[in-house]
């Protein structure tokens, strides 16, 4: 996990839409194991609260923690079964013998999706969550900036595989390294919806044509 590979790519565009930009992430170090906040060891955080206002706060805390956790380990796609599994260190705390049950997790997921911090990979089957610890917009801007930097004028065509394997000019990995094709496709679909790219399907190979104003 290279610690700061994404910095140069990010500097090119606004960082304001990075989800954790407003308040610093809970873990201070960008490498190593994730540092949990002290409330992770507070038993009642694992029971959905009765009082509506407290529940709001509780959902907020979990949402922020999940995003920070994903950002730390660069989790793009999160399987439902992994989140519910006994070995998931985020949603259970063995020291205090507490865990979020499935009902509670469903509530958390609904909250993330509602807030636009996550989305189900498929709406008909809720088994994989795309985690937006950076917004789709931010990823899209980063990819566009990279394409522009690499000298591809308007009309540059890439396959998804090319984009995923892309490296910076100086050889460092790009900010979105490790992003699954499924996730990248979602990013590009967003660009297509804004008229800034066209997705192409050539004999089963997905490609993308960027429409970038030559600057």
């Amino acid at each position, binding site marked *: 996990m290279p610690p700061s590979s994404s910095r140069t790519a990010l500097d090119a565009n606004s960082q304001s839409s990075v989800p954790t930009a407003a308040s610093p992430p809970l873990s201070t170090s960008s490498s190593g194991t994730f540092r949990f906040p*002290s409330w992770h060891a*507070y038993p009642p955080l694992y029971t959905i609260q009765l009082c509506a206002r407290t529940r709001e706060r509780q959902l907020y805390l979990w949402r922020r923690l999940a995003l920070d956790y994903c950002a730390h380990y660069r989790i793009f796609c999160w399987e439902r079964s992994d989140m519910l599994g006994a070995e998931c260190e985020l949603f259970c705390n063995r020291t205090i013998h507490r865990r979020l049950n499935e009902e509670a997790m469903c509530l958390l997921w609904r909250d993330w999706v509602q807030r636009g911090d996550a989305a189900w990979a498929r709406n008909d089957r809720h088994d994989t969550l795309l985690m937006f610890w950076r917004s789709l917009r931010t990823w899209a801007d980063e990819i566009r900036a990279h394409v522009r930097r690499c000298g591809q004028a308007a009309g540059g065509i890439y396959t998804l595989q090319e984009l995923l394997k892309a490296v910076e000019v100086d050889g460092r990995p790009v900010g979105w390294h490790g992003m699954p094709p499924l996730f990248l496709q979602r990013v590009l679909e967003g660009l297509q919806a804004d008229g800034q790219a066209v997705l192409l399907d050539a004999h089963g190979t997905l490609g993308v044509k960027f429409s970038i104003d030559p600057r």
Partner: protein
Amino acid sequence: MLNRWRPGVAGLQSRQRTQERYAEVSEAYLKEQYAALERQFATFRTSLEKFAGTHRERIQRDPELRAHFHVMCANLGVEPYVSRRTFWSELFGFGEWYARLGLLVAQTAIATRSINGGLIPLSTLQRVVTRAMGYGVDRSQSASASAPLHLSEDDITRAVRTLAPLKAGFRIVQSGDGDKFLMHGGALDAGFSADQLALLDRAREQGGYVRREDWANAWPDVRWERCIRALLDAGIVWVDDGHADRKRCYWVLGLLGTPPAPAAVS
């Protein structure tokens, strides 16, 4: 006859003169007393200033001495931590110092509010602020100039007082056991009832939580309900159904752990 009874007008005049003389004398006496008192006061003040000047280091280092010093100052009508441009603030910089502590208190209180509902023990604040100011670290090996400084509960109380002009509703409440808490954000506008304070005490004794059973016979349902309901609504108490025996625990989250220290302000 003439000698024994002097005519009316002259007699009255003379009596009046006597009374005026008395008044003059007593006024002069009072004035003198007042001046003497002033002198004494000034002397005391000067010696207090001298004392403060000589023991400045110790006053800044020793929380107990600092508390006594503050009481003495308050009795004299000198408030070193309020007045900005006086001998006192120049000597100690107390005004700014307490304002800084106050800022850290406010930061900590606001940052932890989503968890503790706006209730935080002063002892916790004391730890957090001490850490944020970089005090209390064992620096015994280093030079005496950077010897460890300590904050007392009194300092925190004074720091909270500097927040009063903000009208943010920072308040200090005291439980039956004498534990002091900072409350803010209108969590419980009416303050704590005796039952709620008792509940806080019990929770602290039991490591942060209470259960209905703790008052099984002592409190009828309606009394328990009223007590716990308000605390739940204020976000001070959270429910926990995850206990092994399946009985609900009610946690006072403000009593758990020490929140991370905010960045020290300079």
